[in-house]
């Protein structure tokens, strides 16, 4: 199967629904920080934006818009400790096995096997649903998360949109 053309499909869908033309974020360049440590010395953290919540917390609003809630995730929690609520993708498999979308058990195993140096003390779940406030993300929310990662001495950050 060829890669899905989500931009075209969503543009068509929005038009059918009578929405104004969507202005996609288009970045002409990207920052890049070289990884200077070998992987087996790196502290790794991970973010999911797939509506993943620990069962002790309120579930995510599956239809969330501009929700800047950001949960910390205990890396010792296991996949069975979570539920997934997100109306923007098929969560059936993720609710059967969270590792499909947020491989928390696999990451811990790579730590135990010495493939990575360590798992960071905090993983993350946030930026879920549709977020239209780009300036808020770019200038406030993302820098705040970057500061938290810095506090945790994270070397490598894995982002998984779902």
């Amino acid at each position, binding site marked *: *199967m060829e*890669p*899905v053309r*989500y*931009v*075209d*499909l*969503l543009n068509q*869908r*929005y038009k059918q*629904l009578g929405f104004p033309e969507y202005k*996609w*974020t*288009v*970045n*002409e*360049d*990207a*920052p*890049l*920080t*070289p*990884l200077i440590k*070998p*992987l087996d010395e*790196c502290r*790794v953290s991970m973010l999911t934006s*797939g509506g993943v919540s620990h069962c002790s917390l309120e579930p995510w609003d*599956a*239809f969330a*818009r501009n929700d800047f809630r950001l949960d910390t995730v205990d890396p010792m929690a296991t996949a069975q400790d979570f539920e997934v609520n997100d*109306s*923007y*993708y*098929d*969560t*059936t*498999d*993720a609710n*059967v*096995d969270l*590792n*499909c*979308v947020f*491989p928390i*058990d*696999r990451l811990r*195993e*790579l730590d135990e096997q010495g*493939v*990575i140096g360590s798992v960071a003390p905090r993983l993350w779940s946030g930026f879920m*649903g*549709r977020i239209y406030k780009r300036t808020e993300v770019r200038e406030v929310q993302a820098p705040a998360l970057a500061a938290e990662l810095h506090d945790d001495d994270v070397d*490598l*950050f*894995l*982002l*998984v*949109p*779902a």
Partner: protein
Amino acid sequence: MLVSTGLDLTRLVKPPRSLFVNFPMGNPFGPPGSADYQRRILTVALELTSTMNTPGDITELRDAWPADFQDKVEASLLMG
């Protein structure tokens, strides 16, 4: 490092480094219950972080989802 299931979306946003997996949204690390497969994709993503040094580069994993996943695509197009 971003693990992506939307190639066109990733090209627009241009994260520093991305691994594109041509799987349905909701399955970037593969099907449920496939620990070995999930571990492999996770390991590939982590290992690529040290070798991808051109900003905005996307590495495409060649693995194919075993079936058409149009039903899952439809689910990802729903509007709340």
